[in-house]
């Protein structure tokens, strides 16, 4: 494998909807999935100074077709995005979808096939089509969401046999982490509290986040004066011991988009471009880890490929997002990458180092817990945040020293590790 891009590729524009619930979140309530997607696409095209007719191809991502009911997304969305008669495909890599789309676009551009590609992702994990209505939606039950989502997980031997995401992704990884590094359950719990506090702080500073309430405010609303007392209470139960409810993913409806183009075309464009310096992808079926639940071979391979292509090492990273559907898994991945010292990730959270104003900023949009998780749209929301940070446009949550190298890692169920390395131009 040569693992090289033959031509430099840049992100020229990014867009992202608010994440939330199409039935009740401000800015989203009443929108159809077509309009939700168009909002994100329009923002990305406007950011790049282009229209849908200026792109050569469209890669349309959507994972859970059961709730969106827009397969053949490229054509069904074409008149909503101004992209009629373009080349296109509907694809999915579950929760890595949009960034795998960016990787496919980068390869197509570097190969000399297309100059400019629009990538977008849309997902509704909170609401589904109501009956046969073209515009009415209704809530999805917890069980239905996971039954549909888990269709991406081993359907021969795991899901039919009691597989449970909260156990596999949270509780077992947490225990592996504590045993490997000799961390007490009490220290683990405090570290997870601080990690949640940082992610919710970021969400509270992000007008597009699903959850914009700090952990402290939530505790107060629930009647607690001490937020850590709330954290340890039955109002924040163990969902997969020793992982608690507020360390988990928050489902969301949402859409994201980006415009990729040749780097030479991006220079002098409407907005400051960001270069795709490298990427890596590696997938695995269950089990995602061996005897040591903190080490995932697929992540390591994806990271190594991306760093090799980009010519960077861990010490070069200014901003990191790791997939944080499970907060403890996100720490393990950051340690595998080398951004955090092995076994010290939760300690870094307790010291405030993972906040936007710390020396190891992570998930400054709020991550999967606070920003929310709309499977096929989420990786694009991570890239959106990284681009804002690298342009100095992240507002109240702006990292003080504007990042020059950002790394975005996502887990696409179940499980595809995708890593993007972005660099300032």
């Amino acid at each position, binding site marked *: 494998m040569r693992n090289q891009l033959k031509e430099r590729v840049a992100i020229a524009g990014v867009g992202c909807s608010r994440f939330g619930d199409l039935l009740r979140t401000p800015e989203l309530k009443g929108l159809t999935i077509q309009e939700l997607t168009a909002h994100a696409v329009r923002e990305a095209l406007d950011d790049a100074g282009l229209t849908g007719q200026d792109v050569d191809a469209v890669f349309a991502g959507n994972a859970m077709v059961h709730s969106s009911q827009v397969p053949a997304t490229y054509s069904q969305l074409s008149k909503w995005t101004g992209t009629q008669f373009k080349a296109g495909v509907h694809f999915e890599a579950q929760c890595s979808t949009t960034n795998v789309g960016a990787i496919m676009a980068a390869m197509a551009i570097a190969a000399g096939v297309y100059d400019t590609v629009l990538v977008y992702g849309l997902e509704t994990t909170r609401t589904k089509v109501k009956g046969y209505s073209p515009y009415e939606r209704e809530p999805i039950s917890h069980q239905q969401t996971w039954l549909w989502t888990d269709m991406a997980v081993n359907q021969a031997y795991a899901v039919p046999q009691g597989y*449970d995401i909260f156990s596999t992704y949270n509780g077992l990884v947490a*225990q592996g982490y504590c045993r490997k590094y000799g961390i007490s359950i009490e220290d683990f719990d405090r570290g997870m509290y601080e990690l949640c506090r940082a992610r919710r702080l970021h969400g509270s500073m992000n007008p597009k986040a699903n959850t914009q309430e700090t952990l402290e405010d939530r505790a107060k609303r629930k009647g607690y004066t001490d937020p850590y007392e709330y954290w340890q209470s039955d109002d924040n139960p163990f969902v997969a*011991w020793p992982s608690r409810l507020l360390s988990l993913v928050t489902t969301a409806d949402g859409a994201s988009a980006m415009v990729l183009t040749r780097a030479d075309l991006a220079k002098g464009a409407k907005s400051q471009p960001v270069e795709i310096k490298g990427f890596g992808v590696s997938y695995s079926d269950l089990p995602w880890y061996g005897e040591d639940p903190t080490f995932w071979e697929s992540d390591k391979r994806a990271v190594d490929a991306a760093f090799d292509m980009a010519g960077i090492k861990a010490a070069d990273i200014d901003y990191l997002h790791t997939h944080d559907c499970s907060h403890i898994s996100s720490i393990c991945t950051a340690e595998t990458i080398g951004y955090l010292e092995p076994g010290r990730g939760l300690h870094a959270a307790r010291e405030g180092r993972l906040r936007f104003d710390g020396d190891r900023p992570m998930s400054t949009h709020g991550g999967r817990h606070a920003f929310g998780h709309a499977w096929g749209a989420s990786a694009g929301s991570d890239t959106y945040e990284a681009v804002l940070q690298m342009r100095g446009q992240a507002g109240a949550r702006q990292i003080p020293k504007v990042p020059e190298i950002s790394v975005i890692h996502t887990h696409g169920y179940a499980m595809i590790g995708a890593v993007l390395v972005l660099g300032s131009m």
Partner: protein
Amino acid sequence: MNTIQEQPSAIRSYYEALAKGKLLAVTCKACGKHTFPPTGCCEHCGSWDVEEADLSGEATLLFATHNLTPACHPRFESMAPYVYGHLKLKEGPIFQAIILGIEPKPAALRELFERGPVPAKAETLQTDDLPVLAFRIAG
């Protein structure tokens, strides 16, 4: 009369064997490693030259956690909450399954975690429509 012969299926064979309390895997003739549960291909080296093998059902339970209700899958609604564990089988494969012999409560899970790895033995549960492979903590 239907004269079309049914083709062999590793998945069907696995569940039919499991219903009788047997654990089917495949062993690779090229690299000698096990693929469990079985497919038609070696998960380690990619060889198609595999043969059926029985596993002992003996395992070491490395970690065990629990879930909440409702279960993610309707088949397990009546069983949830249940304990779910990370195991190393005697023959080498790593596997995750429902764990029997312990309550799905934080205090019990913590006590087990503090004991460290414990031996466990395969046991077949019969649900309404499918046998389910679980492991019971020994002793």
